[in-house]
């Protein structure tokens, strides 16, 4: 075991300073040290997608990163993205469509969908259902059968596109 190392990171907009063991994963750091338990651990091997958070604006598996690797960077978790309101329409669509059951996979799916929606929005396209299903290829859901999730993302993309056109 190597002695704890200093770590300075911006989490959900606030600076955080801690000493952490080099072997500590980013997911365990967020959950254990910071109490940000919205980041979930389903497999700890990068397969299920439940732990996905944004690192400098890009979705990453928090279970595959070490906390010391994010020194000096910005991490946004489901809690921060929710509080900032950037997911509000997507969350409302998931809620209305019941695009979740146990909710354990939902934070990772929302982070991924948020990222995809931004690029679809930037390109001015509404994604096909196949494109949405493909975008979710790194996220397991065991409850919903995926269709409602696809519906919720599709309706959000369409609403954002319509708003964009209207503006």
């Amino acid at each position, binding site marked *: 075991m190597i002695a704890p190392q200093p770590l300075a990171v911006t989490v959900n907009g606030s600076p955080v300073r801690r000493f952490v063991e080099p072997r500590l994963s980013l997911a365990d750091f967020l959950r254990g040290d910071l109490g940000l338990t919205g980041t979930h651990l389903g497999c700890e091997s990068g397969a299920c997608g439940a732990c996905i958070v944004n690192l400098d604006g890009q979705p990453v598996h928090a279970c595959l990163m070490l906390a010391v690797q994010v020194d000096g960077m910005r991490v946004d978790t489901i809690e921060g993205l*929710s509080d900032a309101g950037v997911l509000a329409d997507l969350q409302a669509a998931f809620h209305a469509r019941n695009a979740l059951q146990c909710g*354990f996979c939902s934070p990772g799916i929302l982070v991924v969908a948020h990222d995809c929606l931004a690029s679809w929005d930037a390109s001015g396209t509404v994604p096909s259902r*196949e494109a949405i299903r493909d975008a979710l290829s790194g996220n*397991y859901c*065991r*409850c*919903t059968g995926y*269709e409602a999730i696809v519906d919720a993302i599709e309706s959000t993309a369409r609403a954002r596109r319509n708003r964009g056109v209207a503006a």
Partner: protein
Amino acid sequence: MSAVADSPGAGRYIGRGLPRPGAKRLLAGRGRYTDDVVLPRMLHAAFLRSPYAHARLGAIDVSAAAVMPGVHRVLTGADFALLCTPWVGTLSHFKGLRSAPQRPLPTDKVVWAGQPVVMVIAETRAEAEDALEVIEIDFEEREPIVDLDAARAPDAPRIDADAPDNVLFRTRIEAGSVADAFAEAEIVSVDLRFGRHTAVTMEPRAVLADFDPSEQRLTVHQSTQTPYQFQDLYARHFGLSEARVRVIAPDVGGSFGMKLHLYHEDMAVVGASLLLKRPVKFTADRMEAFASDIHARDHRVRARLAVGPDGILRAIEVDDVTGVGPFSAYPRTSAVEGNQVVRLIGAPYRLTEYRADLTVVAQNKVQMSQYRAVGHPIACAVTERLVDLAADRLGLDPFEIRRRNYVTDDMYPHTTPSGYRFEKLSLATCLEKLHDLMDYPGLRAEQAALRERGIHRGIGIATYVEITNPTPAFYGVGGAHISAQDGCVLKLTPAGEVSCAISITEQGQGSEAIIGQIVAEGLGVDRDHVRVLTGDTETTPSGGATWACRGAGIGGETALQASRKLKGRILEIAAAILQAEPGTLDIRDDAVTDADGTPRMTLREVANLAYYRSDLLPPDVSPALTVAHHFAPRGYPFAFTNGIHGSLVEVDVETGFVTILKHWVVEDCGRVINPLLVDEQIRGGVVQGLGAAFYEECRYSETGQLLNGSMGDYLVPMACEMPDIVIAHVETPTLDTELGAKGCGEAGTAASSGAALNAVNDALRPLGAGISQLPMTPERILRALDVI
């Protein structure tokens, strides 16, 4: 008759597709799952697991581990010997079922690869895992018993040395004269193999036990669907007062039946907290989940069907052999699944001649027990495969042979040859509805046209009959402490809102949402003014909780009757104040009204009065605004539901890959309380069934090693592989309850793999090939096609 039009209340909430109130919290990352719970002075557990499927346990040296940084205690089987009484997974109504006693950790032998052997308790999970690496154990390897047929051979080595053989349970069901029926009929037969699979809940199992010696109180936070069952188990096996054992199931990240069995780690964690007098947490990682969560559906079924030249089914004969791991799971046993297979085969059809044999065999693999739609997918696939083969033999269409043979609407109540009693099913209605929904003639025409171009599509259908709303006949009569009743405590708060504590639990299927709808409608209050509490043995009344599709049918009826009771209380108090007869008053929109709906006083005024100004009530009128109600089903032993699935697939005959193009479900779960939730329950269930059909299999080596125990190796359906799923409903409410609801949670899983099996075989048939093993992997399809 729609659910809304004849609903017991005003039709405002029952039958409406309202979103779940609790879902917003989960979407905001504010869920609170067991592993999220942190207690002061909490320690973490990790387990050293057996690398061998079968071995005698020699000396265990933990001395190096005990002095590792952060380690508080290292525990072995001997440490629990006097702390905890052993458990045995038998039920008295399964005569002859036997199983070896279980303890938290083994003392003499290990019986599956992955069995926990030594437990380390440390400051952190990482430190506990560090210490596992320096523990030394002398394992003396023994011959593993893996294969089903080898395990039941008379001279097979035995897993339990005291037992005469490795067969844990045998039963035979016999009705009529099968031999006579087979003597004078066409015969079709199957030899179907079903791969072991497992639940893969997104949240792994987690348990956090906190024993307070000053009050002799045990609090356990646990990811489970049955907190009362665990309260009873911990109290009984550790000799604690049940009233001082509290089990809290906070948010649960999926369960599917997997989280209602007792696991060795649960008992070890509780035992460790009792010994250390501190909170101890264990959360399984994914590898541990694959190697110790229950597996399901390891069956080999040989079956024959006799059919007359008129296309009328005459008899079915079945031999089901199922491998359940080294012992029978506790407290529900590993015999229930096979029992349901042999009782449900042939259930939708008019049959009087039936014989079925069940053999439950021990093996050195992970324990096998109840998982979503227990036994149903096996029974459905066997039956529906036989029926399709019979149709093929006689040149009948799959729809036509079912039309000719279903139990007809004038036959209810109907008893199957295996003894199940059906109040009323809607088989023919569902069949015709599916025919229209699929546009069956159009699909057949398209299939024929595509075959001309070398594209091989298959269309399959599968009928299911599902067991829901179980009475004590299920477990109680067998001696298990598993409740068939539910309880509800309903309170009008001083501010005139409603608090509802109920014994059914929430794992995302929407139990809390539907109970809120039922109570709001039953009382005549706004849904937003009803708060539903679940999952805590200290704050909710005891009851069966959520399994076997009992939440809506039994829990919902309990809530409805409780709301009637509370309404009576409110009206009695209001009547005393208003100087009216309670019978002339009603409650609508949170107000006590005259019969014509004219508001007389708000519920807030009634509550204020009862709580703060009871001096204004006549002396013979109680101010109580809390009621408790319990309900257990008393009519039919089970409420059977039914439905039918359709599957459209395309088989690539060069690669063996199957594309699932579309799936249809017509289901009848009685009264639909929330169609939004029912539809998503069914879709999720279908996808679990399609996983069994095409992807999911726990694969073992000859030495009993699980070969694919990770999410990278064990395939679970993903978004891009799954089709859109079309759902339609038929509603045949049960008359056993006022609510009329039956279960819907297993309908999706029950028949989807059977429909897919028939669909793939329909695609292969013109090529002279057939497949009889699930999952239908590309390799198996290519073998069926004789390509490899």
